[in-house]
């Protein structure tokens, strides 16, 4: 979901960019191994939510750029919605007790 959200807000990005962005957004709270990003990207690709294309980075380096597909955007909406519902529910539960 994080990856989808990143791609949604930032447009096409390469793996390192995504990793960096997630790190920044989570204010370094989420210290995942950057390597785990790639199998995740592959999984998203296999499900048809992202597509990848070789291109050149801002520093003229060859890199693979990932972008969100229509199905991916829909999926993100669904996930955001269900997350909202879920967290809202948890919040309510926490508040009432």
């Amino acid at each position: 979901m994080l990856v989808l959200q990143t791609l949604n807000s930032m447009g096409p990005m390469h793996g390192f960019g995504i990793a960096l962005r997630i790190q920044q957004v989570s204010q370094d709270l989420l210290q995942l191994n950057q390597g785990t990003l790639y199998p995740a990207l592959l999984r998203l690709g296999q499900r048809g939510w992202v597509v990848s294309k070789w291109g050149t980075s801002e520093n003229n380096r060859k890199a693979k750029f990932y972008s969100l597909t229509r199905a991916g955007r829909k999926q993100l909406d669904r996930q955001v919605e269900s997350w909202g519902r879920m967290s809202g529910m948890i919040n309510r539960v926490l508040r009432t007790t």
Partner: protein
Amino acid sequence: MRETFRTLVQRFAALFRRRQLEHDLDEELRSHLEMAIEFNLRKGMSPSNARREALRSFGGVEQTKEVYREQRGLPVIETTLQDLRFGLRMLLRSPGFSILAVLCLTLGIGANAAVFSWVEGILFRPYPLVAHQERLLALTGTARGESGHADISWPDLLDLQSSCTLMDSFIVTKITGTTLSIGDRAERTIGSIVSANYFDAIGVHPVLGRGFEPGEDSGQNAHPVTVISYQLWQGRFKGDSQIIGKTQRLNGVPHTIVGVAPEGFYGTFVGWGMQFWVPASMEELFEAGGYKLEDRGTRWIEAYVRLKPGVTLEQAQQEISAVAKRLEVDYPSTNRGRGIKLWPLWQTPFNNAGTLLPTLEIMLVVVVFVLLIACANIGNLLLVRSFARRNEMTVRIAIGAGRGRLLKQLFTEGLILSAFGAAGGLLVAHWCRHALVLLFPARAGVTMHLPGDIDWRVMALSAGVSLIATLVLGLIPAFQAGKVNLAGALKSDSAAVVGGGGRAWVRSSLVLVQVSLSFVLLVGAALLIESLQKIRGSSPGFSTQGVLFTAVDLVSAGYDADHAKGFQDELLDRVKALPGVDSAVFARVTPLGYGSFSSTPIAVDGYPSPPEEQPTVEYNEVGPDYFRTMGIPLVSGREFTRADDEKAALVAVVNETMAAKYWFGRNPIGERVKVKDRWMRVIGVAKNSKYQSVRETPTPFFYVSRRQNFSVGAGLFIRTPLSPGIMATALANEVHALDGNLALYEVITLQEQLDRSTSPQLVAVTLVGVLGGLTLLLAVIGLYGVMSYAVSQNTRELGLRVVLGADRSSLLRLVMSRGLTLMAGGVLLGAAAALALTRLLGNLLFDVSPRDPQAFGSALAVMTIASLAACTLPAWRATRTDPARVLRD
């Protein structure tokens, strides 16, 4: 759901682009790391720190790749592919082993596939192009008090047809023959007399013209039409596209060719390819014995029925029996004691299915033996190899390979072997498709057609056999691998005593199985050979040497009775005048041939026939001097002479069994017997001989004078010491001198006639003999392998024995005794199995007990010699053990 499917497709697709994807992954990760380093450098780290930090925050690069790969492809398939590749590499690394193993498997699976294909093509689906053969059954008559089958009469068949509700159709087919003269070539040809529904009922549609039309099978000689086979059309009529409507003389009568059967259709007679079909209305022209379509008492038809879908044989038989019972009541004079019986196609008694059935049944057992022995052999090879690969296995377990993964690897190797074996086996079966025909002696005018049929059923069965083989092959080394003991295996091997140790135990028992199985086959082969010798050596009751048989087809040439009598008398005189000819005679039916004898209900003065049964006896119409020519001794009375002609009193000669049965042992000479409503006087008693088969038990039989019961068709028997070849030329000259248009049949000795009638035995002997030999070879290879391996593994012990004073002969004895003990064990087991199993040979044995000691003896002798040969080389090698070298090593 859609995503799951998409994932699967993508993963599967990834299997085929591995190299490209792997390259992409490398690139991507490298660029990631480079960017990370650059980023860190910009943050002001030193180059080495920047690199370390980049790698740290990435995590393990190789681990990532591995996780990525697992996510990318399908690990199950990938490891399988890996196993396959590795297995292939292992097999290529020891080509000797692989080739031997594949050969053994090819043999085992090939033998199975070939026999399956024969069973399919001859017994279960014998008739190419015929629709729904699973609903086809054979139909014959039965006679109370007699075993076996009888033919059916035409009126009975029509009644069955109109009364039975469970059958789609009744299909009449009766084999017949004619001499076909097209252009200047005359050739013997076989065909079928069929009911008019024949082609429609079996679902075969002529490629040209039509089949027969309803009604074409009624009326005496009313519909001279014929359908010819595709081969005949192509061969003799040169594929003439205007053939329909042309006429062809068959047995002297012009027949209109109304159709050409499709290519690959051979009719409905297992073993023989039919060349033409005529409707039953023309029966009188092709069958001896007059017009029979309205005669309920004359039984001549062989038939099939097609059941309606879902009807079982039992239900159909019940219905048919009920109708037969009614016919018995309605027509007591002809049908008393007569029943009708249905047979599954593979038991069809009136063609070669019936004769081959016992042989094929035995072959099914034999090929399983061959497969087992082949598997045991490969098992042995695998054991040797698994020993050699013990280090590899140990290392793989030590570095963490699971047992399951190892097993999978071993099974994969077994699968590769058996896949090759199966492919080779099917190839062997393909080559052997027509092998059965080769085993039958050729006879003029008959196109033998006994095809194996490799259809999906045969393929599936062979695949099943290979899978079982795979399991067996995988299990043996797996059994070994499962026992790999790390600590023990990493220690150096220590030699055991010759033949000792657990592994040797497995191998020895494999050899034991091989020896015992091949011993069973040897006993079987010996029994069959012995019976064949007995059959061929047995006296059929007539001379087999010095009597020649041939025929001139006057029926096809259109001779009527008077012309035929004149021709035959003239020819007899000429033949008798030839130098070297003692006597010659015409007789209607040849003993032990395919032609059927006349049969008749009889009445005998003073013999009260039981009310439930109508005594029916077969007879032959023979000329003067028949008994002298054939060498059948007369017990009393006289034989036929030229004086026993149309004007003289009717006479008959009976055989001993008939005299004993109907005259209770009194001398029947001068007594009367009623044959086809005519009373005949018995003038002689002949010794029993064989009439239809050498295996038959003595049956009542009699002979009548040909002149007094004339029909045109007859065979010529000549007593002469001359060879058939010489005689054929002289005979052909005489025949041509009388009528230039006539051709002579092949000239054969009666021994040849006898041999042809025993061809099923010959087929059985050849097949069991060949496979028995093969299994013996395999077993000997197995024994040799075990012994030489034992010797090579135990040179240390042998060397020690030499040092301690053992001389060569004692070493020889030691090794030989090991081998021979194995053999003796195998023979004992095999003998026990053979005692239980040879009974299966049942019908194929002739005058030989299934427990015949001589057969067991010869099998033992062969096995002993073969085993001695197998042990000698290893034993000799053992005596060459150099103690100095052994101790130095």
